[in-house]
């Protein structure tokens, strides 16, 4: 009975829900559609709780860093910084009825989070160009293809390319619409087939990865 409650019933729940949604997709019955819509909303609500659970884990990690683990002063200061920023944004966010649309929140979000977030992503620029310099040598047909595709499309996207090389724009647009589409469409078809297989395995109760990830005592 313990095994049924802990593993078998959740698995049946997955299979039942997927089967129900599949039936709804092919049948046009109002009651079934209403139940399916309500269950979809349940999914969005539970997703919200899952996101909050992730936050709880990160807060727990930093709490342990500060209070329990034998970490260096530098690491402890980082955890303090984490809590300061988290609590500051949380307090400002909930302090007014407008929540995140409030003026103060928008000020701190745009002038503190946005520059840091943008710069973190922007750092990838330098790693990307150095990686490209090292990798894009014409060693084979494949590397020639990747290098040529990169250079042609790069020049098309910059305003300077079509101005100084007029045939570049229509040619690069043609490459994007034919060779690129051929490849990505093949990839999309393969992904679609893979998704169908995954869905069938979930329907038949063979995909237990999500349930196995829960470690029990």
């Amino acid at each position: 009975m313990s095994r049924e409650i802990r593993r078998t019933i959740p698995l049946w729940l997955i299979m039942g829900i997927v089967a129900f949604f599949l039936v709804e997709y092919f049948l046009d019955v109002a009651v079934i559609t209403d139940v399916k819509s309500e269950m979809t909303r349940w999914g969005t609500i539970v997703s919200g709780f899952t996101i909050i659970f992730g936050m709880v884990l990160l807060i727990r990690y930093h709490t342990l860093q500060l209070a329990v683990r034998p970490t260096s002063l530098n690491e402890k200061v980082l955890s303090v910084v984490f809590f300061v920023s988290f609590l500051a944004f949380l307090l400002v966010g909930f302090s007014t009825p407008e929540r995140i649309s409030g003026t103060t929140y928008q000020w701190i979000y745009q002038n503190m989070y946005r520059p840091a977030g943008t710069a973190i992503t922007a750092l990838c620029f330098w790693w990307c160009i150095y990686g490209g310099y090292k990798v894009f040598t014409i060693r084979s047909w494949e590397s020639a293809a990747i290098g040529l595709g990169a250079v042609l499309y790069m020049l098309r996207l910059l305003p300077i390319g079509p101005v100084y090389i007029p045939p570049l724009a229509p040619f690069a647009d043609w490459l994007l619409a034919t060779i690129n589409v051929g490849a990505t469409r093949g990839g999309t078809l393969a992904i679609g087939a893979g998704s169908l297989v995954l869905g069938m395995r979930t329907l038949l109760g063979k995909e237990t990865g999500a349930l196995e990830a829960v470690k029990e005592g």
Partner: protein
Amino acid sequence: MTFNDMMAAWTFALFSLAILSYLWKLNYVYKIAETFSVGSLLAHTFVNTWTGSIEGICLKPLMSGQVVRIVPLIFGLMIFTRLSRQYAWISRYPTALLAGVGTGVMFGATFDAQILTQLAMTAQAFIDKDIFSALVILVGVFTTLTYFIYTQEHTGAIGISARLGRIFAMFSFGMNYAAELIWYLTLVVGILIRLVDLWIKGAILGL
């Protein structure tokens, strides 16, 4: 420049340069700025999620009489049992709900959207475009698909087709790489424009 604008410019410059200092080497100033952004993003996500999903779709309707919303509330709270080794198995139920609903919403439409629609558009190309372009697309689709066949050894005709498909795919990856580089370039240029206009010209030089 008002005091508010001055503070905004200096704060922007401080955080941007702290992160960009990584280009010199990984340093403590970068780590502080990075940790700060993680904490702020976490709070931002919490406020958004609470307001939109939990308060908006669950608690408020529940308070106004939609009793059925107690079910996702209970399922949502069950997730937190994962923190206890003894009761972690309870969190399998909300996980099952999420896995079931997540798979269910996409399963039915996948065949139509990602297989039939793609095949239809490949055929439609023979009507909308010139014959050469349509043939290139068809060859690209077919050869890329053969590249993803893992149950047959890539020799003979399949081998040639898979090799051609790989070349098509590499061309597409190159275009993806270029577009990604432009994305990063946009962000870097955006930072530089703001540093020059707001911080150097505005806050420091007072222009």
